């Protein structure tokens, strides 16, 4: 027990030594939140609509996602209407002053994003109009940022495969990477049909379900917060590779303590980090977006146990993989669908009922709903307690599996 606390303390100290990672973990969601605020904050009621023509020359899942997110038809929350056009037609119409702007998604857009190469979206604005194009530009930044963030989920494993061939074993040749990304592409295209158009229905559903005048920010914020927690869990789980590479894992296994005590300590530290980030995020949400915040300590505690669940899940994936590169690909492939369907990328309010039903059963989706209920003071104490105990039990089982694997093949290879 003392060793567990010692390990937790040691891990927290190590986290503080690496403020860059912490800043990035916190900074990305805050940046996204701020942009949501910029783009949608206080823009209730009727705002003038701009017309944006979009020429998609890439026709990949990422450009499709961008289009979907912009709301190709009646995107009522976004301050513009988008219309798909061919490039030539678009240019002609801008010249004729028929639209506020033309967005050109260049060929190779998805490729470049996945490879983290610079790529430029061309926005041709109508010189005759002033205010509307500016608004378009601002909102587009947000959408592009969201797409970029999505890419972070997939991009990293792909990137890792492209850039650092493993010393020795299982190097994936570039064709293989291309094949995998094509595969992801087609999966995403199919999923996209189900997932992305609903964003457009946002306003309709919102009007039905939410009695308060919740704006986009408030709607998106819990999702973004949970996405952050998920990324955090993933990042903290990856630390096991650092311990392995530094040799400290092996040394820990030669101390007179069980492997489980060490791993529990690491999980405790992860819970503290996640709870702190969550509490911080909720306070930002409260004052930035008017999010309800009725039970901050309880919400923090909930985030901590949910964090333990997510971290031990991601940890198990890390430990199952034969190398860190395989691990990051594996967790990307698991995390992505969970984020998408579990309401961590798009809010449940914007998803079709069938997917919501499934999504609420994902660990992150379920935890997110509970967190919202806690914040809105709309939770049932008995069932929440049962949930707490349930999570602790499941995390315990996962932790047991992690420990077996870690002290066995993982530490020895």
């Amino acid at each position, binding site marked *: 027990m*003392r*060793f567990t606390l*010692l390990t937790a303390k*040691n891990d927290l*100290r*190590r986290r503080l*030594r*690496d403020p860059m990672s912490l800043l990035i973990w916190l900074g990305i969601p805050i940046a996204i939140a701020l942009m949501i605020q910029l783009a949608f904050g206080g823009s209730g009621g009727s705002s003038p609509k701009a017309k944006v023509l979009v020429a998609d020359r890439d026709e990949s899942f990422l450009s499709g996602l961008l289009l979907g997110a912009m709301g190709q038809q009646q995107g009522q929350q976004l301050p513009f209407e988008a219309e798909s056009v061919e490039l030539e037609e678009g240019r002609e119409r801008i010249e004729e002053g028929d639209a506020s702007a033309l967005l050109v998604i260049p060929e190779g857009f998805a490729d470049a994003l996945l490879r983290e190469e610079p790529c430029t979206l061309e926005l041709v604005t109508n010189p005759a109009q002033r205010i509307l194009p500016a608004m378009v530009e601002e909102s587009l930044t947000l959408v592009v940022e969201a797409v970029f963030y999505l890419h972070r989920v997939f991009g990293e494993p792909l990137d890792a495969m492209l850039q650092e061939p493993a010393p020795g074993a299982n190097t994936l040749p570039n064709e293989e990477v291309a094949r995998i990304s094509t595969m992801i592409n087609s999966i995403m295209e199919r999923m996209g049909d189900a997932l992305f158009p609903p964003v457009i229905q946002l306003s309709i559903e919102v009007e039905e379900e939410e009695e308060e005048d919740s704006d986009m920010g408030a709607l998106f914020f819990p999702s973004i917060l949970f996405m952050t927690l998920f990324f955090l869990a993933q990042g903290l789980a990856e630390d096991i590779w650092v311990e392995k590479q*530094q*040799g*400290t894992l*092996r*040394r*820990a*296994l*030669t*101390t*007179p*303590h*069980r492997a489980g005590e060490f791993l529990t300590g690491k999980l405790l530290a992860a819970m503290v980090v996640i709870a702190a980030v969550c509490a911080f995020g909720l306070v930002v949400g409260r004052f930035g977006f008017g999010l309800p915040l009725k039970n901050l300590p309880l919400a923090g505690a909930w985030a901590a146990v949910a964090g333990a669940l997510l971290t031990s899940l991601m940890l198990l994936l890390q430990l199952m993989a034969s190398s860190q590169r395989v691990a990051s690909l594996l967790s990307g492939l698991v995390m992505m669908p969970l984020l998408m369907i579990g309401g961590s990328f798009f809010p449940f309010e914007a998803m079709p009922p069938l997917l919501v039903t499934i999504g609420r059963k994902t660990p992150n989706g379920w935890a997110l709903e509970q967190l919202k209920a806690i914040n809105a003071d709309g939770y049932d104490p008995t069932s929440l307690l049962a949930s707490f105990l349930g999570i602790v039990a499941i995390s315990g089982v996962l932790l047991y599996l992690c420990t077996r694997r870690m002290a066995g093949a993982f*530490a*020895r290879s």
Partner: protein
Amino acid sequence: MIEVEGLRKTFGDLVAVDDVSFRAEPGAIFGLLGPNGAGKSTTIGCLSGLLDPTAGSVRVLGHDVVGDALAARESLGVVPQELAIYEDLSAAENLRFWGGAFHLRGAELNRRVEEVLERVGLEDRAKEPAKQFSGGMKRRLNFACGVLHKPKVLLLDEPTVGVDPQSRVRLLDLVREEAASGTCVLYTTHYMEEAETLCDRLAIVDHGRLIAEGTLAELRGMLGERDLLRLAGAFDPDKVGAALAGVEAIRGDHEVVQSDAELLTVSVPQASRHLPAIFAALDATGAEVRETTLTQPSLETLFIKLTGKELRE
């Protein structure tokens, strides 16, 4: 005290450690000497509880490392071959964590940390993150993490590999100090000189097998007073034996350790005095000698005698 009996460890088909038995006593340095891949680290892994032995038993102070693992590890200090320190943390923080893992706390922990930092000569750099250290300094910190809690049994796995000469001398002195204070030290190395100057008892290992064991004097005794004569050139292995047997001065008192078409190794007493006669006899078989090496009895010659090859690859 370390008692190893019939230790065997396999990785799939590969037998890394094969029926190894030895005993290391308190207050002495027991050396495991062998080339890379001999199975030294695997042996240490089995001793420290990182690896499960395939067969055989290992006891540390009477505690079985498998059946009574935690108790066995209580008295262990390990200095692994690969560094095992937190790079982001300072030397002092590393020591405090690993000391805490061995139940040290409060004033006692502080005292030990200061003491060991001074011993390894890192007292001025105690607050710096370990990642800023040179290789030798990291090695010394790695050593400090293993001895901070004053273990009764200390396992050192090639602690001087890749270390600058000053750090190396310092590390060897530290190891001697440990043994002098009553610790049972197991020291693995592939450096002959280290084994010769440091160890009270030695086991020579090759291909997972323990091929000789004893004090330095006992091991030297196994060679007798013979020198080792190594000749390189072109030989006819079928005739060499008979030709040497025909040399009057060494008849019945020499041994052909190894012989092939290019290399001939013979152990002979006072070889330098018999060189002309030996050359003459070989010459008569049509052999051609291009290079002659004469070595006095040492661990190197013992190793060559036992395995037919040099320790250094």
